[in-house]
C-alpha cells in the first residue's frame, strides 16, 4: 500500500489517501474501513440518458464518487472489497443520496475519511505501508489422500486449493490400485502448485506431511518435472523445503511454522510471531494458570490492575459494527501500552488468529499471578459467557 497523504486534525478527524498495490492491501483496507466512514474513489457507473425525443440510451462512465459506507463485503479468496453506500457528494452523473457500490481496485487511489481515527487504525496504515513485510511463502500440507495448498502472506493465510482423493488401501495381492491412486493424488497436488504458486513472489515452498508422503511427493514431482519439462519447477527446485507435520489438515500449518528449520528461514514474519505468542500463552496457562487469562471480562480486570505483560487480541474485534465496543477495545490496547505492556494484534486470517478468535478473541499474559481472577468467575458465570458469545458473533 502506498500512502499519498494524511490529514488528521487534533480531534482525530481527517482523511487519508491510499493506493493499494497488492491483493493483501485489500485485507488491510477491509480492516480500516468501518461503517459510517466516507470513501472517495474512482468507479464505473451505468448512466441512463434521456434525449429530448424521449428515447433513452445507457452508457458506462468512469467517474469519481464519494459514498458514506453502509456495508462492507470482503471476498477472502479473490481479495476483492466491495463497499456499498449512498452518494454524499454532488456529481455530474449521480444524484445525491443515490446508492452505489464501490469495488476498490488495485493501483487506484482511494480516499478514506473517518469521523475519528484511533491508534489501531493509524497503526494499520503504517503496517500496510511497510514494504519490508512482504515475504510470501507457499505451503503444502498433505497426508495420503488429502492436501491443502496455502499461501502465507504477512497478514493472511489463504487456502488456494484443497485436494481430497480417496486412495484405496493396500490389500492382499492388490497393491496396484493403491499405487495408482497415490500417483493420481500426487499429480493433482503438483498441478495445483503449478497453478497457484507464483514463483516470482513466493520465496519458499514448504512441503509438510507425516511419514514419507512429502519425500515421495517431492520425488514424484521432480521426476514429472523432468519428464514433462516443467521449467518453473526445475528452476525453483532450491526453494522447496520438506518439513514434518502430523496431518494434512489446515491447522497443522501451526506445527509447520514452529519447525526450527522454518523459523530460521522465515524468522520475522507476522505469521510466525503470532504462532509463537499463542504458544507462549498456552505454556503459561499450563505452568502458571494464574498468569494467563482469556475472555473480555478477565482481561479487562487484569488491565485495571495494570498487570498485563502481553495482550493478544484478534483484529476481528476491531471490525465490529458497534462503535462503543470498538472504542472499548481500543482503550484497552492503549492502556496496556501505557502501562508498558506489549500488544500483539493477530490477523484473523492466520491459523493462530483463527484459534484466538475462537478463544474469545482476547487473551493476556500477566506480569504477576492474579489468582483472585480465577476464583471470581464462579459467581458471575453468565457475564463471562455473554462476553464470549459477543466476540464470537463478530
Amino acid at each position, binding site marked *: 500500500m502506498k500512502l499519498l497523504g494524511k490529514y488528521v486534525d487534533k480531534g482525530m478527524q481527517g482523511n487519508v489517501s491510499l493506493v493499494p498495490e497488492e491483493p493483501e492491501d485489500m485485507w488491510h483496507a477491509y480492516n480500516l474501513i468501518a461503517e459510517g466512514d466516507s470513501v472517495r474513489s474512482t468507479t464505473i457507473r451505468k448512466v441512463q440518458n434521456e434525449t429530448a425525443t424521449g428515447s433513452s440510451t445507457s452508457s458506462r462512465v468512469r467517474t469519481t464518487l464519494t459514498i458514506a459506507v453502509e456495508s462492507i463485503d470482503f471476498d477472502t479468496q479473490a481479495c476483492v472489497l466491495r463497499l456499498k453506500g449512498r452518494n454524499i457528494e454532488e456529481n455530474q452523473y449521480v444524484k445525491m443520496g443515490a446508492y452505489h457500490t464501490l469495488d476498490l481496485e488495485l493501483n487506484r487511489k482511494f480516499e478514506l475519511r473517518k469521523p475519528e481515527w484511533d491508534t489501531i487504525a493509524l497503526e494499520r496504515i503504517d503496517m500496510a505501508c511497510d514494504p519490508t513485510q512482504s515475504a510470501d511463502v507457499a505451503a503444502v500440507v498433505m497426508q495420503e489422500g488429502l492436501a491443502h495448498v496455502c499461501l502465507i502472506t504477512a497478514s493472511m493465510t489463504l487456502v488456494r486449493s484443497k485436494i481430497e482423493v480417496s486412495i484405496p488401501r493396500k490389500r492382499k495381492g492388490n497393491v496396484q490400485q493403491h499405487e495408482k491412486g497415490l500417483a493420481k493424488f500426487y499429480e493433482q497436488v503438483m498441478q495445483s502448485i503449478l497453478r497457484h504458486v507464483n514463483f516470482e513472489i513466493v520465496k519458499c515452498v514448504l512441503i509438510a506431511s507425516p511419514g514419507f508422503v512429502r519425500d515421495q511427493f517431492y520425488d514424484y514431482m521432480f521426476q514429472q518435472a523432468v519428464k514433462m519439462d516443467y521449467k518453473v519447477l526445475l528452476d525453483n527446485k532450491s526453494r522447496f523445503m520438506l518439513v514434518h507435520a502430523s496431518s494434512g*489438515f489446515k491447522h497443522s500449518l501451526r506445527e509447520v511454522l514452529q519447525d526450527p528449520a522454518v523459523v530460521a528461514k522465515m524468522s520475522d514474519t507476522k505469521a510466525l510471531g503470532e504462532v509463537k505468542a499463542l504458544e507462549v500463552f498456552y505454556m503459561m496457562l499450563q505452568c502458571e494458570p494464574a498468569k494467563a487469562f482469556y475472555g473480555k471480562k478477565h482481561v479487562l480486570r487484569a488491565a485495571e490492575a495494570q498487570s498485563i505483560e502481553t495482550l493478544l487480541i484478534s483484529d476481528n474485534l476491531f471490525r465490529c459494527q458497534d462503535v462503543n465496543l470498538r472504542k472499548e477495545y481500543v482503550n484497552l490496547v492503549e492502556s496496556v501500552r501505557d502501562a508498558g505492556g506489549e500488544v500483539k494484534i493477530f490477523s484473523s486470517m492466520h491459523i493462530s488468529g483463527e484459534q484466538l478468535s475462537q478463544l474469545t478473541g482476547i487473551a493476556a499474559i500477566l506480569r504477576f499471578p492474579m489468582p483472585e481472577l480465577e476464583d471470581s468467575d464462579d459467581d458471575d458465570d453468565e457475564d463471562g459467557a455473554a462476553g464470549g458469545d459477543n466476540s464470537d458473533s463478530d
Partner: protein
Amino acid sequence: MSRHRIVRGMDYNDEYDGYDDVYGHSVDDDCVSPTDQQWLFDRTRGQHSMSAFIKKNKNIEEEAEDGDDNDDEDEEDEVYQKARRDSENFQMPELDDTAQAKLSSCVDEVRSVVGDAVSERCIVETSMRFDYNIQKVLDEILNEETSKKDKNRRPQKLKLNATPAAKTITTPKPTPTKITLSTAKDARRGFDIASPKAPASPNVSGRNTPVDGGDEAGRSTNAIFKVSKDQAQRNTQELYEQERSSHKSHIHMIVIGHVDAGKSTLMGHLLYDTGNVSQRVMHKHEQESKKLGKQSFMYAWVLDETGEERARGITMDVGQSRIETKTKIVTLLDAPGHKDFIPNMISGATQADVALLVVDATRGEFESGFELGGQTREHAILVRSLGVNQLGVVINKLDTVGWSKERFQEIVHKMKSFLKQAGFKESDVCFTPCSGLTGENLTKSAQEPGLKAWYEGPHLLDVIEHFKVPERAVDRPFRMSVTDIYKGTGSGFCISGRIETGALCVNDKVLVGASREQAQVKSLSMDELTQTSVFAGDQISVTLGGVDVNNITVGCIICDPQMPIPVTTRFQCRIIVFNVKVPITMGYPVLLHHQSLIEPAVVCKLTASIHKSTGEVVKKKPRCLGQNSCALVELETSRPICIERYSEFKELGRVMLRVAGVTIAAGMVTKIR
C-alpha cells in the same frame, strides 16, 4: 415391433422401474404385457428347465383341481386360501357388550400395527386367548408370522413368480389391499432367488403392479425412506443363528506396539507356521530380502506388501490376513508402529475385538518404547479407549537377552502396573515370552532350553485361542463404517469395512454418510467369498449401486434407512485428557478420530470439569483442562458427521482427539445437537 423384441434376456424389473422417468415412452415399448410375461421363459428366474416351466404354468389353468405335481406349492396355496377364507367368511364370536367392545378396540389396535397381512380370525382368536391384552396379542401374532415366513422361505427358494399371480386371478372377490400385499411379498421371493451376481431379477408377476405395491408397503412402515418389506421386518437374530451357529466364531485381533518391536515379523512368522503362507512365497521373500541385505525382514514382508514399506522396513498401513485356530477364525490386523501412522492404527483398532501388544525385550529398546512418547504406552491407551479390553502382551526378541527370566519378569512387572493404570483388568491381560524371528513359542510350546527352564505357560497361538469372543450386536439397526473404497472387479465400486451392529443382505437399501444418500447393496463378500447376508463383527466388502463414488469418503457411516444414524456438526462428549503439553481451552483445534473418520474439529465449549471416578461436577465452565483431567466439552466439526451416543451405540460413540501427532484425549459422546 414390441412383439419382436429380444425379450429373453431382458431385465423386466429394471425396465419397469424406470418407465415413469423416461419421457415420451409408450408402454408397449418397454413393458411386456403381464399376461405375456407368464408365458415367457427366463433363465434368471431360477427355472432350470423348460419342462419345469411348462409344468408350473399348467397351474394357471388347472389351479382349481388339486394336482399333486408340486407339493410345496400346494401347501403354500392352502395357506393362502385359508387366510383369505379366514378374513372373508369369518363370523364374529358371540360375546356380551363389554367383551365385544374390548375385542373390537383390541382388533383395531392390532390392525393398525400389522395391517391387513393377518387374517381377522387370527387376530380375534389370539385376542381372546390373551384376554385382550394388546401387547401380548401383538407379540404372539408377529412371532407367528415370522416363524411362518421362515418356514416358508427355504422350500420356496426355487419358485416361480407366476404362481401367486395366478391365484390372484382366480380369487373370487379380492380386496385391493390384499392383493398388493400378497404380491409384494411374492415379489420379494423373486429377490431371494437371485444370485448375488445378477441381483436385479425380474419380479413382474401377474396383472398387478408389484413394484408399486412393494413400495407402498415400505412407505407404510417408514415415511422417510423406502425399503422393501423384507428388509423392514427381518428378524436378524434368527437369521444370524440360522447362518452362523455352525461356523467357527470370528474374532478380530490387532497387533500393536512400538516401532521395530517386531509386530510384522511376529505375525508373518505366525502365518507361515500355521500354513497360511506357502513355502514358495516364503522362499521368494527370503531371496529378495537377502538381496537387499535385510534378511531379518523376510517374515515382515508377508504383511508389508507395498514397495515403499519394504524399502523402508516399516509398516505404514494396517495389513490384514487371517488364520484359523481350532475353535476360531482370527483376522489379524497388523498395525504400524511408527508415530506418524497412528491414524492408520486407530482406524485398524476400531475394528478390533482384542489386541496383542508386542514389546521388544532388548535392553534399551523396551525402555524407549515405554517412555513418555513411546508407542507402547500410547497404543495401549488407545486400544483401551477404543473399547478393547482383552490384551495379550508378547515379550518379543527374548533371544537377544539370552532368554533371561529376570528380564522377562522385569518387563512384566513394569507393564502390569502401567496396564492397570490404563484400565485393563489383570485377569484380561496375559504375558507370553517369544521370539518372532526364530519362531520360538509361537505355535509350539517352548523348545529352547533357555526358555524351557523357567517357562511353562501357553504359546502364542494358545493365547489367541483363549481370547473370549465378544457378543455381537446383531439385532441392532445396521451400521458400518467405511475403511476403504476401491474399484472392485466388474461394475460398480466396492467399499469395505466392519459391520458394527446389525446385519446386511444383498439387495438391501442403505443410507450413505452424512448426506444420507440412498444406495443399494449389489453384492456382499467376506474374505473374497460371496455372501447373501452378513452380520455384526464381520469384515466385509460391499458393492454398492445407485450412488456416486465421490459421495463416499473413508470414514463415513453406512446405515439402515429405517433407523438412520444422527448427523450433526456439534455434540457434547465426556473426555479424559491424557498427558498434554498445553492445556485444552475453548477454541482449541483438534483432529477428531471417530472410527476410520478423521475430521478437524474445534473444542467450542468447556461445559464442566468432572471428577474422574465419581463423575461429580467439580467446576462449571473451567478456563482450561490440564493433564489427566476429566471433563464435559462440546465439539464442533466443520462438516456434518455421523455419530451416535455412547449410551446407545458404544462402538460409534467413542471419539479420540489428537493434536500435532499426539493423542490428547479420549471421549464418549453424551449429547448430540
